[in-house]
């Protein structure tokens, strides 16, 4: 049974279909929200709300326009942004691009194992750069799908990622 058919079953209250979809998508959505929120206490509430919307608003999903994973990521992403706005934090606006420094990345980073540093550095990025990197680097999402969620073009998405990676690299260098 395809995902579109499973989602269709949700309208008739089919919990088995819901369980199948939950098992398929819970881990990636949890990973996405965890990275967006930096393991914030509200992470689980956002994941839960995302999947509750699949149950209550599943009929709004249109398989012709997006994959289910993209649709769910979109919901999770918007809930994260709403959360940041409500709590008035971490919605950093885009700033002018920094000078392109091509210095060598220190060898110590090869042995860099502290994921907390990466988590903290990711949280220091402007929200859109962070989202773009998480979607494409960690979630394995295609550039087109990520661009749809961020409501931008593929070219602009690539620019967000390149700038985000450059800034992230500098932040990590400063931490070690």
């Amino acid at each position: 049974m395809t995902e579109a058919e499973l989602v269709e079953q949700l309208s008739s209250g089919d919990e088995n279909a819901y369980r199948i979809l939950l098992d398929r998508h819970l881990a990636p959505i949890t990973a996405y929200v965890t990275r967006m929120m930096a393991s914030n206490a509200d992470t689980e509430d956002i994941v839960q709300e995302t999947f509750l919307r699949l149950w209550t608003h599943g009929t709004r999903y249109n398989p012709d326009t997006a994959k289910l994973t993209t649709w769910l990521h979109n919901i999770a992403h918007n809930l994260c942004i709403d959360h940041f706005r409500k709590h008035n934090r971490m919605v950093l606006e885009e700033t002018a691009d920094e000078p392109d420094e091509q210095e060598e990345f220190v060898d110590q980073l090869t042995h860099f194992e502290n994921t907390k540093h990466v988590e903290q550095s990711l949280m220091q990025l402007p929200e859109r750069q962070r989202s773009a990197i998480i979607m494409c680097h960690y979630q394995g999402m295609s550039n087109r799908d990520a661009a749809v969620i961020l409501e931008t073009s593929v070219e602009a998405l690539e620019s967000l990622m390149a700038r985000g990676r450059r800034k992230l690299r500098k932040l990590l260098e400063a931490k070690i």
Partner: protein
Amino acid sequence: MNHTRLLQIINAYGTNSDRWPEEERLAALHQLEQDSEAQQAIVNLKSFDAALDSYVTAPAPHLRNRILSNLHKSWMDSCIEWLLPSFDQLLAYFWRPVLAASLPLITGLLLGSSLFTVEIADTWEDEIELIALYDSGNLDE
């Protein structure tokens, strides 16, 4: 595919070609074979990408059951959950019961103040009546 585009791809998507745009991947890999500057860029960025990859999130096994158990909540369940939130919501844990406990007090104050207004009207009428009686008593004299 050319040198500039390949560097753009490396800078945006990183050193792992699996993450490169699918439609450009083969051409990019072909370009990489003959592009020493791009090869050097990959060498320089390898450790950075390794650092990014080291950031792994922990699974939340209890979350599945939590989501499933919340599918069919009645409005009463939602009310109780709102009034008695989980311990991790420390602020809500304190203020919600306080708010709930203060509701009867607020209701009582509202009711009391409205009844008090009626009482004043009655007292005033009574007072007029008494004055009238007093005056008529004086006339009788």
